[in-house]
């Protein structure tokens, strides 16, 4: 399959047949492949046909490209396993119910944690603290309100964990609802759930940044 020199009677000069690429004395594989598929115009094809009568190397290349094309066409189509359809059917049937279930569970969890944060926020406002770092103010509010722990360390850990859980719940709910929305963009229940979850997230940030004000 190597590209040797042309036969003794092959054309001596490099050049083109109708402008098609030739490497020294031979046509490129790309050009021969195009010739094989009939993609060249009549002038180019005539030039290549003429060359092929004289060049063993290009004839071999064309034969090999023909063999590649034929072998590729002979590759068998393969069936998926029988259980593939069963799994597809299960997945098609399952997502809407699962997504909505997640949505409501996530919204409920988010609402519960939101209540905790709101209580802490109000306690903070009542304490009349100045503008400090939001996390520090919430932690101090929690200690002042006596809802978590009298010690600063315990308050830090408790509030951080609760806030992280809260945000994770809200974000998870929003993600699930967004997926449900992509599938049911006009479903009013999903749209309401999405609006509610977004509102919960916004309120959580308000509480964190403004200390409940």
């Amino acid at each position, binding site marked *: *399959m*190597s590209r040797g020199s042309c036969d003794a009677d092959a054309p001596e000069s490099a050049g083109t047949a109708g402008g098609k690429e030739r490497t020294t004395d031979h046509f*490129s*594989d*790309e*050009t021969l*492949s*195009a010739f094989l*598929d009939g*993609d060249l115009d009549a002038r180019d094809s005539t030039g290549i046909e003429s060359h092929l009568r004289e060049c063993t190397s290009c004839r071999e*290349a064309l*034969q*090999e*490209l023909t*063999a*590649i*094309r034929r*072998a*590729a*066409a*002979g*590759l*068998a*189509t*393969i*069936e*998926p*396993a*029988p*259980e*593939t*359809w*069963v*799994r*597809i*059917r299960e*997945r*098609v*049937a399952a997502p809407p119910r699962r997504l909505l279930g997640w949505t409501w569970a996530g919204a409920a969890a988010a609402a519960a944690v939101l209540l905790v944060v709101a209580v802490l926020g109000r306690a903070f406002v009542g304490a009349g603290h100045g503008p400090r770092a939001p996390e520090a103010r919430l932690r101090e509010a929690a200690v002042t309100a006596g809802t978590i722990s009298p010690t600063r360390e315990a308050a830090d850990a408790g509030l951080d964990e609760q806030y992280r859980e809260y945000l994770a719940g809200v974000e998870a709910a929003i993600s699930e609802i967004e997926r449900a929305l992509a*599938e049911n963009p006009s479903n009013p229940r999903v749209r309401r759930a999405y609006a509610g979850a977004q509102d919960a997230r916004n309120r959580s940030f308000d509480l964190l940044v403004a200390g409940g004000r």
Partner: protein
Amino acid sequence: MNSKSNTGPRPAGANEQDNQPPPDASKPIETSLNGTAGAIEHPGTAGTKDDFENVYLEHRARVFSTAYRFVRCRADAEDITQDVFIKVYRKRNEFRGDAALSTWIYRITVNTALDYLRRRKRRPTVPLDDVNEPSAGSTNLTSLIESMIPLLPEGYRKVFVLHDIEGLKHNEIGEVLGITDGASKSQLHRARAALRKMLTPIVKGKL
């Protein structure tokens, strides 16, 4: 678009007992996604053969084969096939009939397979039980070509699989891949040239 005989090995470990029988491919089917609203909303209801199932029956082998040519792994091709038909079902309202359904499904298949490979951040895997290792003693050109397809650059591979294996025309490939007919032809001829170059040291003088 062409169709070939469908026979294929099954993945190891398939649990026969837990599986329902596959849809009956011998029965006549119609290619439609929107013909029976009730059926398409509840695919696979007991004992019925709905539009979605018909679409699966008609296109499953092409989807699976195309995916397999890209990833060279039956388990991955099974996953891709599932993902493709889930997308077909969920996006059925986006199919407006501007192109053939098969073209639309091919487009989803190619994109899903390529996304799959990119997510894995790997070259296509070649499991030992799936491959006919290229060797100087092998003259099975079909097997050699199949094993070398994943080594082609992505652009070459897409067009070669769709044209020379799946039998799509260049205008159909253009619709699937969003490229011109000329670009499709160019990629195809380069793919064949690349394959010939790879095959040369293995099957010299045997083609």
